[in-house]
């Protein structure tokens, strides 16, 4: 094996020789430069492999003097990994810079090598003074490479960075010298051993000097001003180089030096500074308008997070692997994003509108790296964060989880604020990759690919291998996403085939009906929904090529979520679902803004759930099945957090503001899935995660309050509020959106009853809602496709043009409203019986009221679109595409089966709830009458009654009285006047105005104003906070000195 010291020696030697070699030609020197870096990369990777296989770490002694007298180096697995990362980044960065600099100078090549040398030296050395020297080398290298910038901004930021760096190095040097004086050694390990014995006043001050010096090098708050400036002013390619080399090296140095800091006070100080940096930098980033500056804030935040974790890694509270994953993730994602920023050149967020329309690979990479950056699965950062959180949750340090999640949420705000622009449809100003050389994009593709490959591997590990349907669907989706050659319609066909195949396999595989357990039930619901959407997709075109790829990833992630037995597996699927559905929502014509809001609220929901899961992890539970063991306060906390998360995700009243726009502006093909399936996943969460947690009742003055009772009211009020708001919508999809949220409110209330009958009602409604809302959204999609509008006032009288769609909507609204004889009634009946059984009387009445209000919007929907006067421009309209109608027929068939023979679904549900509760709650009297302890209902008899009445009365109409004649559109009784044109006759705008007037006092939406206020306050905080970065070099240096005083004042110096 090559001696690791050669990593330093060879690079340094080449750096010195390079100006000479350059005489032979620039090509030669560049080749030598690349070869040197490749050599370093190769050696480090070989060492890494050897160490992983169990080889002994290398201990290198210099100058023949053993430690503590001589300088010694150490090369273990961590060192090898960091060196490998540094050389890899440097190599790819060199390729990028070679193509990107106007004139690749030999100076630049030399400095690049110096930076790598400094970094690798820092990583390997165990000597404190040597550390100082390498810090200075990296510092000088950084200042020098920044000074190459042509622009004034680059120079300014470089100078500021250098000024603060010089102050920091004075602190460090003083600290090192005094430490030597106190301990008589410079060897780190030796010093750590001797330091506790030193009982001289002033040790604290000395340690503080060193600490603050290193914190300044690490760009921690409030010393991060210049560091953020160099992101802003510097060349992105250079910044990428720094991220992969010196930044990681300084962080590792900090980790090594922390061995000197014994005692909880130091650990607390370091963690606090790290966490404050994480939260504050993320907060200040949300008002940034310049991409590179925003990335600077993000880097500062990420370093803060890593520094926060260091003491916990030292204390073995948090696994080293968490740290390693987070660091790797940050390097890959940040370097990749910086290269992309350099390639694109867009300075402001808006400049990124529809970025890289010409390259699928770059667009996917950009998305992947942003998702990696914010810690979304499957990327390494997600796993790192999870491990870190679990470590914290299982220790006394659990309160840190709160700011960590808050900071992570803020991170979502600005990254998705940026991504939002990228997702806009490509337009005139969209910049592409143009004719970028492969060398320029190589690093981006390598890093994004690595992050993705690692992520897929880890996901496969948690979801039971690559053969699991969930992963398979995801991978097929990825292929669809990446291969431009596959036509869009083929995507729909692939999706149809894949979902149908899995569904059929499930039913044929034996082991009973899949509906017999909750997991199987929801898998069938998901796949059924996906199947119908895919079928409809054969008829209804989508606007974006990536639709089907993302759709399959989404379906796969839902399957993974449902079938995974562990909390981690559940959450992986949850977050994958969140971002894939976000991307699909954003594909709508005006979808990016609603998509952004969707992502924020979904992200918040995710973090609430994560918090709840962490309470469970803290109690040592890591399987969903183990949640039953939770008790007492832990159970209450876990339940509350998890239930709150699910409540946000179902858009409960008060947090509903994201839903209407997200539903309305999604692609027309996606909305039914969003409403029919995705809104049911929180329901699955309630049934499987929340329901397992035995949250104790709260004792209030009014007696014991069951947490589920609160949840039931949340569901009930959501049902009422959303139904009411749906009545006043002027847009077909928005109306259905409100309706969807309201309907899910019923399901929440039903599940919260926590009785066999309540669950039967809830799960029945899950299926029924999927059927009728899918039907309504698909029918409306067809109408929108033909008419090009969603506004009620612009439609009317379409019954003659689109009769099948009309029938769809008719069946849909009857099933929705609960009018017998269709399937909706059984759902209402089960729900009310269950509520009465539970004794929640007022809630029963409230839900009855809500369900009557639903009539108003149901009628409005069908009337405004299909009845009334046909517009002249719609006289030639055609019916929706056949495949879309086929999907609707499928759904109608489902509704009819449930209506005529409810036992088809009730029987499996009986078994399902029986397994959960040990009782069924519903019985069959005779062959056909369903009974509960409160009432009875015979679907077959009712259906027969209705059918007989229908036939008899129809016969009456046809045969009693004169033969009736159909008259023309405008032949109406118009008081002897000529009727005005159809546009004026169609009563569709402000349809329920009196109703609006009557409800005016409660309609003023406090929710929207409240959340807007939250957004504004957060934004204002960010705006005010970032003013501390005045841009003045001297202010920044002053901060460094004040920072020492503050920390000393807090007692750290003593």
């Amino acid at each position, binding site marked *: 094996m090559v001696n690791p010291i050669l990593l330093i020696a060879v690079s340094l030697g080449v750096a010195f020789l390079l100006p000479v070699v350059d005489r032979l030609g620039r090509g030669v020197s560049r080749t030598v430069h690349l070869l040197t870096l490749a050599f370093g990369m190769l050696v480090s990777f070989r060492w890494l492999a050897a160490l992983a296989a169990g080889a002994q770490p290398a201990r290198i002694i210099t100058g023949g003097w053993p430690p503590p007298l001589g300088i010694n180096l150490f090369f273990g697995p961590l060192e090898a990994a960091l060196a490998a990362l540094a050389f890899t980044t440097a190599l790819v960065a060199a390729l990028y810079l070679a193509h990107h600099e106007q004139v690749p100078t030999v100076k630049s090549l030399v400095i690049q090598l110096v930076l790598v040398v400094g970094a690798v030296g820092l990583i390997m050395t165990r000597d404190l003074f040597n550390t100082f020297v390498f810090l200075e080398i990296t510092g000088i290298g950084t200042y020098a490479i920044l000074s190459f910038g042509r622009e004034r901004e680059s120079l300014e930021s470089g100078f500021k960075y250098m000024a603060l760096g010089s102050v920091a190095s004075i602190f460090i040097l003083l600290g090192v010298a005094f430490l030597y004086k106190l301990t008589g050694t410079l060897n780190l390990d030796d010093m750590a051993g001797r330091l506790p014995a030193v009982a001289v006043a002033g040790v604290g001050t000395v340690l503080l000097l060193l600490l603050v010096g290193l914190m300044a090098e690490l760009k921690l708050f409030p010393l991060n001003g210049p560091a953020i400036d160099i992101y802003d002013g510097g060349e992105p390619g250079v910044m990428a180089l720094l991220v992969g080399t010196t930044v990681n090296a300084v962080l590792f140095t900090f980790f090594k030096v922390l061995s000197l800091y014994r005692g909880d006070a130091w650990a607390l100080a370091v963690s606090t500074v790290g966490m404050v940096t994480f939260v504050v930098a993320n907060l200040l980033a949300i008002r940034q308008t310049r991409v590179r500056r925003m990335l600077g804030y993000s880097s500062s935040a990420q370093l803060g997070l890593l520094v926060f974790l260091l003491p916990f890694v030292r204390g073995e509270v948090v696994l080293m692997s968490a740290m390693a994953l987070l660091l790797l993730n940050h390097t890959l994602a940040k370097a990749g994003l910086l290269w992309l920023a350099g390639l694109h050149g867009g300075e402001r967020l808006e400049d990124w509108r529809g970025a890289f329309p010409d390259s699928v690979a770059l667009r996917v990479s950009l998305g992947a790296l942003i998702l990696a950056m914010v810690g979304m699965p499957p990327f390494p950062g997600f796993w790192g964060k999870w491990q870190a959180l679990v470590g914290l949750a299982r220790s006394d340090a659990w309160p840190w989880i709160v700011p960590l999640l808050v900071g992570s949420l803020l991170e979502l705000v600005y990254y998705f604020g940026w991504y939002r622009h990228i997702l806009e449809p490509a337009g005139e100003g969209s910049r592409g990759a143009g004719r970028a050389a492969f060398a320029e994009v190589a690093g981006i593709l390598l890093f994004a690919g690595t992050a993705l490959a690692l992520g897929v591997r880890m996901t496969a590990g948690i979801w039971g291998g690559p053969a699991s349907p969930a992963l398979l669907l995801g991978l097929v989706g990825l292929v669809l996403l990446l291969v431009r050659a596959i036509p869009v319609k083929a995507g729909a066909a692939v999706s149809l085939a894949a979902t149908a195949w899995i569904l059929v396999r499930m039913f044929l595989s034996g082991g009973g009906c899949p509906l017999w357990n909750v997991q199987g039930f929801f898998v069938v619901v998901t796949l059924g929904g996906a199947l119908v959407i895919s079928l409809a997709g054969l008829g209804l075109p989508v606007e974006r090529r990536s639709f089907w790829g993302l759709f399959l990833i989404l379906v796969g992630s839902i399957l993974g979520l449902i079938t995974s037995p562990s909390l981690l597996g559940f959450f992986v699927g949850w977050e994958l679902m969140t971002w894939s559905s976000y991307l699909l929502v954003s594909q709508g014509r005006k979808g990016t803004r609603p998509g952004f809001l969707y992502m924020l609220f979904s992200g918040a929901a995710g973090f609430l759930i994560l918090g709840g899961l962490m309470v469970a992890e803290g109690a040592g539970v890591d399987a969903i099945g183990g949640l039953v063991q939770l008790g007492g306060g832990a159970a209450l906390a876990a339940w509350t957090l998890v239930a709150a998360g699910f409540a946000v995700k179902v858009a409960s009243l008060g947090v509903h503001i994201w839903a209407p726009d997200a539903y309305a502006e999604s692609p027309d093909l996606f909305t039914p899935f969003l409403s029919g399936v995705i809104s049911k996943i929180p329901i699955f969460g309630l049934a499987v995660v929340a329901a397992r947690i035995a949250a104790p009742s709260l004792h209030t003055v009014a007696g014991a309050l069951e947490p589920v009772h609160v949840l039931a009211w949340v569901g009930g009020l959501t049902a009422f509020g959303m139904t009411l708001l749906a009545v006043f919508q002027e847009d077909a999809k928005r109306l259905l959106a409100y309706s969807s949220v309201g309907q899910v409110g019923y399901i929440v209330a039903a599940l919260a009853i926590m009785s066999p009958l309540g669950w039967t009602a809830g799960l029945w409604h899950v299926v029924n809602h999927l059927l009728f809302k899918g039907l309504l959204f698909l029918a409306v999609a067809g109408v929108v496709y033909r008419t090009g509008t969603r506004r009620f006032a612009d439609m009317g009288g379409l019954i003659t043009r689109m009769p099948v769609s009309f029938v769809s909507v008719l069946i849909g609204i009857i099933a929705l409203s609960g009018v017998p004889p269709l399937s909706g009634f059984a759902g209402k009946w089960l729900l009310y019986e269950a509520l009465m059984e539970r004794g929640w009387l007022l809630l029963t009445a409230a839900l*009855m009221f809500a369900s009557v209000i639903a009539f108003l919007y149901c009628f409005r929907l069908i009337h405004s679109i299909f009845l009334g006067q046909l517009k002249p421009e719609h006289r030639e309209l055609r019916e929706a595409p056949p495949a879309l109608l086929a999907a609707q027929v499928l759904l109608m068939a489902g509704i009819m089966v449930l209506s005529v023979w409810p036992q088809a679904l009730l029987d499996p549900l009986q078994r399902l709830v029986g397994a959960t509760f040990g009782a069924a709650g519903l019985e069959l009297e005779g062959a056909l009458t369903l009974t509960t302890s409160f*009432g009875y*209902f015979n679907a077959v008899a009712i259906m027969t009654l209705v059918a007989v*009445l229908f036939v008899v009365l129809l016969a009456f*109409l046809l045969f009693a009285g004169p033969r009736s004649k159909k008259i023309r559109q405008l032949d*109406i009784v118009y008081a002897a006047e000529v009727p005005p044109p159809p546009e004026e006759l169609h009563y569709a705008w402000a349809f329920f105005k009196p109703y609006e007037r*009557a409800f005016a006092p409660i309609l003023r939406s406090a929710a929207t104003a409240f959340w807007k206020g939250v957004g504004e306050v957060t934004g204002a905080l960010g705006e005010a906070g970032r003013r501390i970065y005045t841009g003045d070099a001297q202010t920044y240096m002053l901060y460094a000195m004040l920072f020492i005083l503050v920390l000393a004042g807090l007692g750290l110096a003593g």
Partner: protein
Amino acid sequence: MPLLPKILWSLVGVLGALAYGLAIGGIIRKVMARIQGRIGPPVWQPYLDLGKNLSLRTATHHGVMSFIAPIFRAGGGIGLYLLIPVVVGVPALENFSFSGDLLMAMYFMFFGSLGMALGAAEAGHPHSPIGISRGLSQMTAYELPFALAVVALVAQTGSFSIHEIVAAQQGGWLHWNLIQNPLAAVAAFLAFLGMNMYAPFNIVGAPQEIPVGPPTEFNSQFLSLLMVGRATFAVAKMVLYMDLFLGGATSLPEAFVKTFLIYFWSVFVGAVFPRFRTEQAIRFFLGWPTVAGVAGVLLVMLNR
């Protein structure tokens, strides 16, 4: 009781209800006319109207939904009637009430409204949807006190079965829910005013501004079927109220007396009060009737 006789008896019951419903309609027109100082039409005028409509020489329609509306409307009335036991304990008059409980009856009430709304809207006459908008708005509003009253009664009885509710009220008028839960009864009887759409809740068909409201575009047999629906629906509602609050009936004469009284409650009010605008009607129902309903439910909760 075997199925065939049951069907025949039900048919008789429906025809009887139709006759009774039409007659009551005539009586009310007469009463109203006298109050207003007019002579008014004869009591049997609704029968004449029905006959006239069926013997017109022409009939027109606007499409499929023109057929659906009268069918749903009449079906809703007849169906509702068939789901409620008229005289509990007499199988011939219990109809098909064992096919569904009170919830079924409540939801069947919407069947007619929905069908009517659909059919009326297809005609394309703006007056129809305006009337429907008003009618549905008012319907949702009175449904809240009604639902509260039903919840109170059901909780009190421990069953959604109308049979059980009637059975629980046997043993003298003091056992009637009217007395047992007066608050729920107040809520329900105020809601009843809205259901019947007489003044002050008659803006739905407000003759002065939107002639006839929803049925504007219907004629001949279509209109007669709507009349059938209205008549049977009215009877069914009265029977339901009788079963819920007045202890049901043990014989037909008792049923006639009780339902007649129930109906005249809305006639009395209608004769005295002027018409509400839609939003006023809604606010009315969401006010005191709802308070009474909530109080009625709380009463039950406290008594348990």
